[in-house]
């Protein structure tokens, strides 16, 4: 009887050892510290149409930091909310010379011509560069900036557009310096804009 008890205790000890080994074992070390990230270049040369009906080339933004947002003028909530926020944050960065440009590109060129984007930009009481173009031009620019948009039929024959609502920030050299998402707090967005315009 005593022998059986000793054997059982040996089993318990072995089980404890095995458990502690499993619990303290280190996970396998990563093969290498390098992540296979594909480098994607955002932005690039483009031509759209300004609110004056004239061609607008990206060269006009050369040497200026800018925040670019894609939306549409019939957009009831997220577009005006985002543009109003950018204007408000730009004002918070200080008056005087504009610390960065705000660019609004429509993803709905069928409804938004030069006049529409121009008038829409004026809603925000602060200079906003409103841009449109032919559907092909807008499509090309969307691709350059990694923007998604899709029309959604609404009851009554109207349509809405689901679209990327992330604001892309480009520095003076024309390089992507960051993004601002709609869910982000104002303080975080302001810090990014400060860095952009520094």
């Amino acid at each position, binding site marked *: 009887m005593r022998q059986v008890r000793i054997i059982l205790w040996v089993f318990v000890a072995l089980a404890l050892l095995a458990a502690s080994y499993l619990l303290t074992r280190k996970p396998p070390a990563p093969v290498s510290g390098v992540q296979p990230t594909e480098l994607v270049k955002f932005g690039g040369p483009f031509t759209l149409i300004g609110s004056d009906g004239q061609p607008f080339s990206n060269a006009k933004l050369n040497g200026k930091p800018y925040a670019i947002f894609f939306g549409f003028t019939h957009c009831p909530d*997220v577009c005006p909310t985002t543009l*109003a926020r950018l204007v408000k944050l730009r004002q918070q960065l200080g008056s005087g010379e504009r610390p960065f440009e705000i660019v609004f590109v429509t993803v709905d060129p069928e409804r938004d011509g030069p006049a529409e984007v121009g008038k829409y930009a004026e809603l925000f009481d602060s200079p906003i560069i409103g841009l449109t173009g032919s559907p092909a031009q807008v499509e090309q620019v969307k691709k350059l900036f990694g923007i998604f948009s899709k029309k959604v039929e609404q009851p009554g024959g109207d349509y809405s557009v689901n679209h*990327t609502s992330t604001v892309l920030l480009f520095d003076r050299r024309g390089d992507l310096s960051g993004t601002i998402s709609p869910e982000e707090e104002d303080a975080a967005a302001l810090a990014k804009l400060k860095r952009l315009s520094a």
Partner: protein
Amino acid sequence: MKALLLTSLLLLASCNRGAPDIIVSDPWVRETVAGQSGTAAYVTIQNKGSGDDRLLSIGAPQPITATLHETSTENGVSSMRALENGLAVPAGATIPLNPGRAHIMITGLTTPLRAGETLKLTLRFERSGEKIVDFKVAPAMGGMAH
């Protein structure tokens, strides 16, 4: 059958069946320019009563249509979804309809809404009935203050 009865009793018990007392504040609608067919209206709904309520739908003057909507952003893409079951306003709760979230979507505008004007909308509640509310048209920038 017994289980069903018990469940319904439990459900009843978890609802606040007192009288709701709905108070709306800060109603505003964003100004538009010619050519814009839509915008959004915002309001804060408070239920000071002891009973739950639900905002079911919104009535608007012709040719405008007003629908309860919610903006959601997934993987950087924003979309809107109609709140087909309305918006719950539980007893004691304050439900803000704010930019970027739940809002009243206004469509079918044929003339612009100018700052300073008012837009009369009818808020239809499940238990409190209809409330006619004057939404103040506010500038796109000014409205942010709310």
